[in-house]
């Protein structure tokens, strides 16, 4: 059912919803950006429509609501394990279509991979209801169409932000009571139909070609360009890797916690083992590992789609202006070269 509501009406609905829900949306933090005089846009709890940043793309993805960059798993008192607690409320999250698609990748790893379900993810994921933020234009770093992530029907409500009012598609019955006596309209959200960037993802025909691609000189470019800061993977909507660390509280060494923190395969040390063994010791090797994971290995394992939704945040965040689109297109050329050489 479609509705049109004023910001004032929306804020009343937000107030009612907050008895049961935490409302999360992209929010602008003025002056908090990484460079002087720039803002930061990231997910945070909101209680009014005006707090939602709906004009610009958020710097960081919606995944942070469910899997924060740092999360406590257990609290220790001597050697007793006490599980951390999650919020008691349900979660209503405003997301663009790319971020919604990314949740499927998150679910696949946290809930399905290997047949093990991660409790910390599951207990949050079960609480989620999605409000899809209509996204019809995108930005110059977006390539959601190439990834098939520009459209989705996976939402409870969809919203178009207009000047002082919202047009909404309310699909999920649980939200119908909040819209009683509101003005009904016919409304269907629209989607991005054209991106400035397109991606040419190579088909890698066999393991021999794959091995040659791994050893292709194209990756050496990143030894010079990539500074291995990990900004791309932290901003990535689909990356899930983490490291667990135990800490001891300064005030009392009998008490501490086990926490997990987002990890990046782009940072040296990701694969280091006790005893000194390490793998992928150059930025080029690490770039190869990331790009092949997203555009080959993941699909090879799960068979259906690649591990990228084309949100372009990795391109936005890279301080060295490395574009994953350019990297994949280069990889495509390299595969063509290798295949042509093999067919000689």
């Amino acid at each position, binding site marked *: 059912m479609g509705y049109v509501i004023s910001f004032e009406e929306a804020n009343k609905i937000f107030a009612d919803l907050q008895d049961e829900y935490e409302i999360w949306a992209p929010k602008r933090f003025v002056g908090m950006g990484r460079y002087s005089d720039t803002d930061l846009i990231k997910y945070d709890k909101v209680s009014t429509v005006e707090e939602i940043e709906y004009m610009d793309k958020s710097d960081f993805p919606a995944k942070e609501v469910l899997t924060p960059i740092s999360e406590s798993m257990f609290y220790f008192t001597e050697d007793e394990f006490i599980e951390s607690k999650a919020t008691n409320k349900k979660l209503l999250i405003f997301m663009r279509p790319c971020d919604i698609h990314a949740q499927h990748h998150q679910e696949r790893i946290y809930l399905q991979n290997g047949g093990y379900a991660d409790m910390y993810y599951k207990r949050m994921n079960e609480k989620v209801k999605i409000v899809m933020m209509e996204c019809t234009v995108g930005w110059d770093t977006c390539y959601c169409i190439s990834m098939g992530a520009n459209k989705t029907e996976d939402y409870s409500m969809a919203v178009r932000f207009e000047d002082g009012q919202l047009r909404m598609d309310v699909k999920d019955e649980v939200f119908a009571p909040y819209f009683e006596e509101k003005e009904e309209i016919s409304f269907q959200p629209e989607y991005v139909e054209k991106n400035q960037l397109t991606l040419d993802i190579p088909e890698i025909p066999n393991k021999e070609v794959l091995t040659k691609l791994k050893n292709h000189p194209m990756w050496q470019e990143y030894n010079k360009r990539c500074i291995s800061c990990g900004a791309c993977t932290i901003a990535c909507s689909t990356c899930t890797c983490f490291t667990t660390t*135990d800490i001891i509280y300064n005030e009392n060494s009998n008490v501490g916690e086990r926490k997990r923190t987002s990890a990046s395969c782009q940072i040296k040390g990701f694969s280091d083992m006790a005893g000194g063994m390490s793998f992928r010791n150059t930025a080029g090797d690490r770039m190869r590992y990331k790009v092949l994971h997203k555009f080959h290995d993941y699909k090879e394992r799960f068979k259906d789609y690649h591990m990228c939704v084309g949100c372009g945040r990795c391109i936005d965040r890279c301080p060295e202006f490395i574009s994953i689109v350019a990297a994949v297109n280069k990889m495509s050329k390299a595969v063509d070269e290798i295949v042509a050489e093999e067919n000689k």
Partner: protein
Amino acid sequence: MNNIMKPTACKILEVIKESIHEYTFKVAVDMKIEHGQFLQLSIPKIGEAPISVSNFGDGWMDFTIRSVGKVTDEIFRKEAGDTLFLRGAYGKGWPVEQFKDKHMVIITGGTGLAPVKSILNLFYDQPDYVKSVTLIAGFKNEDSIIFKGDLDRWKEKFTTYYTLDKDQKEGWNTGFVTEFVSKVDFEKFGDDYEVVLVGPPPMMKFTGLEAVKCGVPDEKIWVSFERKMSCAVGKCGHCRIDEVYVCLDGPVFNYTQAKYLVD
């Protein structure tokens, strides 16, 4: 809700000092285990690490640990009667059913002997399980030799080549394990054999190449990998190589797959 990351408290029954840096911890456990699997061992406030099971029986498991990191150093301070926290067992272990009635060639480097100790004991205790066992076990030097008693015992029933990388030792060979692969008469085994390789990555790489050079087909070679892990259940991503997760699809891999994996 079931929390797969939450370990169980288990009592240490015995600590056996194998060498200066390698101790075996015998722990009372009631978890199910298969040959070649591993568990996550942890100490609250210190951390967690994946450790392979070197031997097991009814209600107990052995973990042979090298003190090379924060967690393992702390485990070394533990004594019989102390507690270790365990979760698992995880991963795909040795295909022991496939090993039945075959000639087995087992090649190990250093502590790589630990993940195969339980199958060596299986073959030792049940002589009809396999047709024969050839064990090539290499160590860096005399100080790094582990399972001394077992090595002596296995000598009685198995064909053995024990070697130190560079040092001399009475009754032992000198040289890398790769140098002894060609001493195995694979032809004599016909089609009826399997090869197991475990050790540091360079050792496995070169021993694999050497075995292939000696005419061993890829599908008869089995390796066990060791990688950094935080979760051991396919979530943290640290152990992923190409499309496989060492924690889920390994640690034991057939060489047909392993030879293509590039970290």
